């Protein structure tokens, strides 16, 4: 079974397809998806800006304690995003905007792993007014760029009705 067929089957068997096609299904889930990205950009985005030096004086550790809110937003968006994809798989898997979005998310994930594995410990103990070391700034810039690309590419998904041969993994 192809990827699109599998996703279609999941959408139909789970009842998600039917729910999404009720009168307010799509706009309701889209609104929740936007609320989730707001949580993510608000917490992770501000943390990135702080590392970049825009909010010097803000205690890094305390600002970082809001990141779980962003993780909650990410979980909400994975669930709502899944609901979109299984309700109209052809619109997503062949779509260069969706492919770009997934790529940017993978990059953001790797970037985050590097941050927590290598740099987070050092950053947490930094005094509030001290400059953040260059490697952490680069990581913050990549993170911010990735999440903004995720939002931008996500918004562009509706502008393509792509042909099947555009999908390089199907």
């Amino acid at each position: 079974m192809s990827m699109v067929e599998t996703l279609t089957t999941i959408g139909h068997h789970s009842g998600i397809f039917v729910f999404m096609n009720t009168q307010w299904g799509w706009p309701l889930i889209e609104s929740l998806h936007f609320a989730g990205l707001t949580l993510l950009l608000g917490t992770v985005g501000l943390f990135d800006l702080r590392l970049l030096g825009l909010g010097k004086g803000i205690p890094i550790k305390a600002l970082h304690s809001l990141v779980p809110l962003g993780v909650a937003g990410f979980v909400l968006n994975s669930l709502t995003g899944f609901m979109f994809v299984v309700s109209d798989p052809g619109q997503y898997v062949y779509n260069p905007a969706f492919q770009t979005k997934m790529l940017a998310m993978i990059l953001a994930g790797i970037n985050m792993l590097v941050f927590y594995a290598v740099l987070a410990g050092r950053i947490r103990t930094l005094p509030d007014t001290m400059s953040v070391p260059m490697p952490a700034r680069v990581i913050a810039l990549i993170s911010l760029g990735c999440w903004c690309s995720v939002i931008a590419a996500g918004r562009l998904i509706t502008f393509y009705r792509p042909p099947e041969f555009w999908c390089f993994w199907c």
Partner: protein
Amino acid sequence: MLEWFVRIELSTLSIGVREVWWVFPSVLVIHSLSMAMMAGFGVVISARAMGFASAMPMHTLQRFKPLLWAGLAAATFSGLVLLLGYPAKALTNPLFYIKLLVLIGTSWLSLQLLNNRWHAPTATQLALLCLSGWMVVIFAGRFLAYTHSVLLASWLVSPAGA
């Protein structure tokens, strides 16, 4: 009123917004990013006012205040361009006015919370109001694409569109 919408819709700029292929998508991207930036900061201000991240004094967050202004400027500009493209679509929908009013009120409330105007428990209650305000703006914005009764006024005047 309808004639005014038609006049705007048939102007070169309005036609450009609808028909130059890259304009509409770019403007929507700017609108999403700027709204997310404002609402995202608003959520963080509310969370702080509710007592999250209490080790971070509210006045330090004021460093990010330009984000709120930049977001408001970019969202207003992109919103006006969208309005120029489809004036009747938004202006005939009551939800558009609700979004506008709640956006103004919530932006003001976010600024006041950021300026530490109140103490708990008032601050907590107003932070909840602020959070709900941003949610209303987000939901209204998304539902605008699904609740319009008119797309283009010029279609009502002449079905051919001109």
